[in-house]
């Protein structure tokens, strides 16, 4: 009984043929466009396949590549260590690889709801960053010392990104709340800080922290990587704070009033009522901001930090592989795509998950 009732409640499913016709050939013109589009896609895919796989050289020398008409993936096989680890000493590459894996693992762990407690996240990240820095820098436990100026490649890019987000996120919350302060002095000054940072290109900020700061305050401004991270975090926070503020402004004023009427103080209202809801509402632009920041790491190249992009340039830059720049950039684009696409899928998962509690 129950089964037949459910079956009757389902909408009728049209046969596949009908659905295909509806989607691709509803009118003669649409049909023609569909056919043309499919023909173009087939042509493009066929050429891509020939270039990227059929005629490609996966392992071999630069000479083998020159002889072949397809892609030269041999450059990746030959130079991947340079791209991933930069100028880190060759025999110590396992440390850089392990450090990179630790960061990726911790990023994945932070994405799991189990770790969504401020304390847990803080402990997780402080511990793993400490391990990362010890491992990379060495000088203890029999590990040889490797200065930060020799860190590089994908490991360094991911490290800069993680550190930027970790410092930038709390800073953005602070800026968003300060800008909403009822004290005019506080809100105006915060607004001016945010607007000044936003009015500067990131390149300028990086240049300032890398070159100008050491001149103004010699000896007391940390290593270059630390200054770069501070500059990027400030830039991230300026944008993210406005994203968060838009989330906060979009909440009905009744939420704060209800919390006040229950006797909740400012911090409890912010941390339990306002910010959790503001983050939900600001989720799509927050995901974009993370994606943008991930890619912006490559700007550090202009102040001589040897990140993934710089390492990639170096990978094809030496005479013998000079003709393989397309392959190297395709590969770097692919690695970036994996990170950004995972991020956007994760964002979509979060949105689905949070819709429940709307």
């Amino acid at each position: 009984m129950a089964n037949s009732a459910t079956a009757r409640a389902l909408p009728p499913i049209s046969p596949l043929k009908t659905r295909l016709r509806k989607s691709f050939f509803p009118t003669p013109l649409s049909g023609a466009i569909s056919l043309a589009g499919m023909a173009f896609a087939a042509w493009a895919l066929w050429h891509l396949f020939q270039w990227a796989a059929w005629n490609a050289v996966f392992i071999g020398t630069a000479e083998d590549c020159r002889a072949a008409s397809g892609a030269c993936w041999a450059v990746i096989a030959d130079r991947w260590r340079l791209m991933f680890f930069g100028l880190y000493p060759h025999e110590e590459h396992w440390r850089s690889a392990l450090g990179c894996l630790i960061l990726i693992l911790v990023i994945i762990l932070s994405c799991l709801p189990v770790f969504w407690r401020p304390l847990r996240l803080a402990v997780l990240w402080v511990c793993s960053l400490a391990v990362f820095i010890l491992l990379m820098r060495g000088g203890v436990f029999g590990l040889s010392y490797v200065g930060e100026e020799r860190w590089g490649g994908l490991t360094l890019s991911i490290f800069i990104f993680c550190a930027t987000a970790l410092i930038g996120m709390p800073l953005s919350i602070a800026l968003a709340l300060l800008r909403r302060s009822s004290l005019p002095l506080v809100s105006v000054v915060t607004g001016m800080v945010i607007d000044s940072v936003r009015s500067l290109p990131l390149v300028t900020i990086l240049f300032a922290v890398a070159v100008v700061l050491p001149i103004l305050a010699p000896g007391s401004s940390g290593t270059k990587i630390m200054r770069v991270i501070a500059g990027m975090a400030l830039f991230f926070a300026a944008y993210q704070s406005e994203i968060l503020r838009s989330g906060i402004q979009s909440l009905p004023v009744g939420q704060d009033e209800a919390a006040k009427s229950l006797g909740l103080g400012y911090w409890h209202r912010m941390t339990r009522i306002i910010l959790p809801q503001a983050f939900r509402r600001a989720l799509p632009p927050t995901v974009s901001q993370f994606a943008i920041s991930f890619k912006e790491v490559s700007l550090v190249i202009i102040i001589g930090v040897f990140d993934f992009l710089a390492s990639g340039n170096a990978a094809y830059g030496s005479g013998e592989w000079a003709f393989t720049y397309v392959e190297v950039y395709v590969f770097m684009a692919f690695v970036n795509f994996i990170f950004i696409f995972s991020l956007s899928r994760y964002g979509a998962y979060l949105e689905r998950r949070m819709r429940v509690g709307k």
Partner: protein
Amino acid sequence: MPAAVTISQLNKYYGIYHALRDVSLTVQQGEKVVICGPSGSGKSTLIRCINRLEEHHSGTIDVLGHVLDDNMSRIQEVRREVGMVFQNFNLFPHMTILENCVLSPMLVRGTARKEAEEQAMHFLTRVRIPEQANKFPGELSGGQQQRVAIARALCMRPKVMLFDEPTSALDPEMISEVLDVMVSLAQEGMTMICVTHEMGFARQVADKVVFMDQGAIVESGAPTEFFNNPQNERTRAFLSQILAH
């Protein structure tokens, strides 16, 4: 016994708009006061001043012995003792019904979770929706949400309850389920100040009905007197409009 709420010579402005004009009102402990009046008459503003959601500019408000001013800790004292129910429910949509109810007792009163949950279930049972405890506000009807809002306020064990047009945002068929809860609360002796247009409710439970217009109290009195023999012309006009439909 001292009065629960004593308001005297209260004035409030929005910019140059004079929202409350020399309002004085005393509410005894256990007393039920219904405030009515046309929209824009200042009735919501008045009860929002009682837990300092609005600041007043002159006059005094004494709530349970605390005189309200800018002192934040005194304001917190008052808010702990005064529950409020809003027109738009204002449940926290990212928390379950139970979490909505235990949040404040745990954070503000320091109640242990187990005890807070038992207390929450007690009040959810009293408003007759214990079975919804683990749902989210968005999954409930308006009437159910408003009953949760009442339970949530009661979980703080308030001495005074403020109701700001609690049935105005409800579909007609849900009004009575909320009013029933309010009536039973009144019968248990809660001190209540209600802004509402539900004159049936006023007749049934109010000790005093206050009519406001243009930011001032025009007339107040016991419900029988107020409804059967209104003194002021504006009161008569208002009552004839509101009782006509």
